[in-house]
C-alpha cells in the first residue's frame, strides 16, 4: 500500500496543472504547490482518510485565496517578472484567448470551472473543496461558462493582467 507521502507525491503533476491554470504564472503556481505540499506533509495527522486529492486541491485553493486577499489589500503593483508573459502571449492559437478569458472570471467561478473541466472532479468533490453546497457549484460553473463564452464571442479588449 502506498504511504501517505507516496500518495501526496502522486498528486503533484495535477496540482501543478491546476495551479498554473489558476494563476497563469509558472513561478507563482509552483510556489503555491510547494506551500501546499509542505502544508500537507505537516498536516498528515489531520488527514483522516477520505480522498487525498480533494484535500490537496482544498489546501491549494485556500492558499491561493489567501494570496489574492493579501494582494487585494495592497495597491496594484506591476508583476515583478516576465515569466508569465509566454503564457499569455504565446503563439499557440486559441490558447491565449482561453487564458485571457479565465483571467476575467471571479476566483470562485474560475476554481469551479477548472476543477471540473481540467481536473475532472465530480460536482460533489468540487463542493467539498470549495466548502459550499452543490447548487452553488452549479451556479458558479454556469456563470463561469457564460462569462467565458461572452468574452470569447465579444470584443477582445487588450487585457491588463489580473493578478
Amino acid at each position: 500500500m502506498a504511504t501517505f507521502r507516496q500518495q501526496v507525491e502522486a498528486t503533484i503533476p495535477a496540482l501543478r496543472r491546476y495551479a498554473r491554470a489558476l494563476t497563469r504564472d509558472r513561478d507563482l503556481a509552483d510556489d503555491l504547490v510547494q506551500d501546499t505540499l509542505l502544508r500537507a506533509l505537516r498536516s498528515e495527522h489531520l488527514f483522516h482518510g477520505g480522498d487525498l486529492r480533494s484535500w490537496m486541491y482544498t489546501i491549494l485553493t485556500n492558499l491561493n485565496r489567501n494570496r489574492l486577499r493579501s494582494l487585494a489589500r495592497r495597491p496594484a503593483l506591476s508583476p515583478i517578472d516576465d515569466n508569465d508573459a509566454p503564457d499569455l502571449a504565446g503563439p499557440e492559437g486559441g490558447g491565449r484567448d482561453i487564458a485571457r478569458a479565465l483571467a476575467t472570471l471571479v476566483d470562485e467561478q474560475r476554481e469551479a470551472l477548472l476543477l471540473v473541466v481540467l481536473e475532472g472532479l465530480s460536482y460533489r468533490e468540487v463542493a467539498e473543496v470549495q466548502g459550499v453546497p452543490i447548487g452553488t457549484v452549479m451556479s458558479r460553473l454556469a456563470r463561469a461558462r457564460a462569462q467565458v463564452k461572452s468574452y470569447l464571442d465579444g470584443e477582445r479588449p487588450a487585457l491588463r493582467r489580473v493578478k
Partner: protein
Amino acid sequence: MIDPNSPVHDDELHAFVDGQLPADRREAVAAWLAEHPEQAAAVAAWRAQAEAIRMRFGAVADETVPERLDLDRLVHDSGGRGGRRPWWTMVAAAVIAAFFAGGSAGWMARVATAAAPSSTGSITADALEAHALYVVEVRHPVEVPGSERDHMTQWLSKRLGYQQRIPDLQPLGLKLVGGRLLPGPTGAAAMYMYEGPSGERFTLYCAKAMSPETAMRFRSDKRYAAFSWVDDKAAFVVSGPADRDRLEQVSKAIYEQVDRSGAGRKS
C-alpha cells in the same frame, strides 16, 4: 435559457458536457438537444471551452516536476528536528493542530484557511522595486550611512516595531552602505544596502509579514534577482544582481545571522 417546462434542466446540460450525467439520462438529453438548437449551441460552446482549457494547460501535468517540489528534499530540508532549521526550506510550524475541528468538509477548509497565506510574492515585488530604484543612486542611496549602525538599528527597530539586527557581511567582502525607511505591506519597511569591491550592490529588505513562515523563494527578472522568506512574521528579501550562486551565498549568510540573533522575534 432552458424552457422551465422542459424535462431538461440547465444543470443537466452541464452534467452532460462534463460526463457527470447518469447513463439513463444521457440519451434523453441528447435527443432533447437535437430539438433545441439554441441550447445545443451553448453545449457545443461549453465543450469547446473545456477542450481549449485542456489543450492550454493539460500538458503541465506531463512536465518534469521541478526539483524544488521534490518531496524528499522538502522533507529533508524542513525536518531538522532539534537543531536549527536548515536555511533553504523553512516551513510553517504546525499551528494547524489548534484548528482541528470535527466534520469533514469543515475541517478540511479550516485546516487550509488557518494555514499561512503565501504573501511573500508581493513583498518580494516591493523589495525588488526598491532595490532597482536605489542601487543606481550614486549620491543618495541611503538615508543613514553604515557608519551609524547603532543609531540606524535603534531608529528602524522603533519604526518597524521589532528588533532589527543588521547583518555584517564583511566576511563576504560586502560593506554596509547604510539603510533607509520605506513604506511596507503593513506599515514601515527597512532596506539595508551593501556594496562589494567592484561596486555590486545587494539590499536586504525587512518588513512585517502576514504569514508566520514560508519557504525560501528565488525570483529573478532580467537584471535583478531575490531570495525571500518569512520567519516568525518577519519578511526578509535579499536582492542583488541576477547571479544566483553569489546571491545564494549572501542570502545564506544573512539568514544565519538574522536567525541566530533572533531578528524578527518579537521579544
